């Protein structure tokens, strides 16, 4: 059978493989020179602000849109260039949740899910019923009357009802209430323990940080950074929060180290990869001179790292211009 034969001709460790992926649009936006590898069984977070190219990347790698150049393989198969059989075999093992899922009008949730499940050819009903129950989705409701959150649930059930080897989720928790979000992440943990790979983009960086093994940061269509959860913890970067006395702000060594201007209340917050010795020296000098009212130095969260990454790049661009 196709799947078994293909696995011998590809690197089975990689669930997703992007090489110099380029997707250009007439308007100019897109993604450029994207290199990315996602290991089988990994939970991978894809982070970036609106318009960074997350959805464009996902669509190009899933063969929904034609890439301008480069390579993209999903479960070892180039979905744009593979034969029909190879593509079908690969897609039978993929589940995808779009960022803004729609539904067929004038059909019930049950009908839409049964239709999509039938495309997989196998038995999906029991799993579908279980997922609907756990996500609190009423199968009897008309699909076009669902709220955004319920449409998202429908898309999640459609993506998971055939127990895929790879789940690609574009903003999966967007529109879901906190209780359902928790159920979603429970389900994703179960998928992961089953051996499935999970690739998801999100704006909620705290959930990415909590859930993912690795993260990729995308900015303006290019990969800014890829790091693991361990790297995040072992990062030499530190988050510094300091509050200064009114007279101490101007001469502060810590302010000079941050390269930032304190706010009106004399507070400054920044992420730095300067040696700890330099940070402590600056803190010590400010304490000695009575400039510092309060200071905290700790590990930055992923959100802070990401914000710092973007703000630093933006500052570099302003300086360069």
């Amino acid at each position: 059978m196709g799947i078994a034969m293909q696995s011998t001709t590809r690197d089975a460790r990689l669930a997703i493989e992007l090489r110099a992926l380029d997707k250009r649009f007439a308007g100019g936006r897109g993604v450029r020179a994207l290199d990315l590898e996602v290991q089988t069984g990994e939970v991978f977070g894809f982070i970036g602000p609106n318009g960074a190219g997350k959805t464009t990347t996902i669509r190009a790698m899933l063969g929904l849109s034609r890439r301008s150049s480069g390579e993209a393989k999903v479960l070892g198969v180039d979905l744009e260039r593979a034969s029909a059989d190879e593509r079908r075999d690969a897609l039978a093992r993929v589940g995808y949740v779009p960022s803004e899922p729609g539904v067929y009008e004038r059909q019930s949730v049950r009908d839409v899910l049964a239709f999509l499940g039938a495309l997989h050819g196998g038995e999906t009903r029991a799993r579908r019923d279980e997922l609907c129950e756990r996500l609190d989705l009423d199968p009897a409701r008309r699909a076009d009357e669902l709220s955004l959150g319920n449409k998202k649930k429908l898309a999640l059930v459609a993506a998971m009802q055939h127990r895929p080897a790879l789940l690609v989720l574009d903003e999966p928790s967007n529109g879901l209430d906190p209780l359902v979000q928790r159920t979603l992440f429970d389900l994703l943990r179960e998928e992961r323990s089953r051996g499935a790979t999970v690739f998801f983009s999100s704006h909620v960086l705290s959930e990415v940080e909590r859930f993912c093994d690795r993260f990729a940061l995308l900015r303006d269509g290019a990969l800014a950074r890829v790091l693991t959860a361990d790297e995040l913890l072992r990062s030499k970067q530190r988050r510094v929060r300091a509050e200064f006395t009114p007279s101490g702000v101007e001469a502060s060594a810590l302010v000079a180290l941050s390269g930032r201007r304190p706010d009106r209340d004399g507070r400054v917050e920044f992420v730095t990869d300067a040696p700890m010795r330099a940070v402590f020296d600056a803190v010590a000098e400010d304490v000695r001179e009575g400039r510092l009212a309060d200071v905290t130095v700790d590990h930055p969260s992923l959100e802070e790292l990401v914000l710092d990454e973007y703000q630093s790049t933006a500052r570099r661009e302003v300086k360069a211009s």
Partner: protein
Amino acid sequence: MNTTATQPLRAARSQAATIATNELSLSVRSLLAWSLPVAAMLSMTLSIQKSMSQRGSLFEAKLAMLPREMRAAFGIAQTNLADPVHYLATNFTFYSLIGALFAALIGAAIATREANQRVSEMLYTHPIERSTALAAKSAAGLAVVVGFDAILLATSALAYTAAGVSVGRATAFVSVFAGAALVHATVFSLSLLAGVSATRPRSASSLALGATFALYGCGVLARVSDKLSWLEHLSPFSYADAAAIATRGHLAPKSIALLAATFALLALAQVRFARRDIDA
């Protein structure tokens, strides 16, 4: 883990059947909403054929007083109200246009349904080829469009029977509807092509309706003016004119061009659809 069926061909057939069934279930309401009122109107028109034929000579004389161009434009140049098939053909131009508008809407809707309802991404990341999906959707659409004409054929036959009219020339009678079905299939395919090519899917229906009126207009202009007679080659309505079929008794050999055009347009739609980005 789930895998696809062991027989790729069987799997593709099963998927095509799933897509076609889904498409039929989504289109059947439109079919009934369009065909039943039209069938009722046509039945009422046909049920008075007997009385019209009794006063036929007076009515035909009145029609003959109309300018030739007007009679040509409305397909009433050759009137013989005493003959049920001719009577049907005289009235059929209007119904054929309605059928073409329905076919245009169905073609555009089928091509753009997933994009308009934002389910394209979800559908085409399932293990189904775009070509299989579009072929299945096209087959379902053609079935709906031809179903429109089949419903008109059945109700027309019933109306004549109920009114005690013997059609007599059964081949000619069926050929009028077969000709209309060919025209509608061509319009459907053109609209499908317009739908898969449209950069803004929501505008596809307007585009398809506009194109249908334009093609119909070409047929009318070709009949009205000798100088514009070449326009008949552009209009599918000219290839299966009901009045000409009623006179001839069967479809003209040139109507085979409609079948060829239908397949060519469907093939073009496949090529276009395979190359476009799916982004909704």
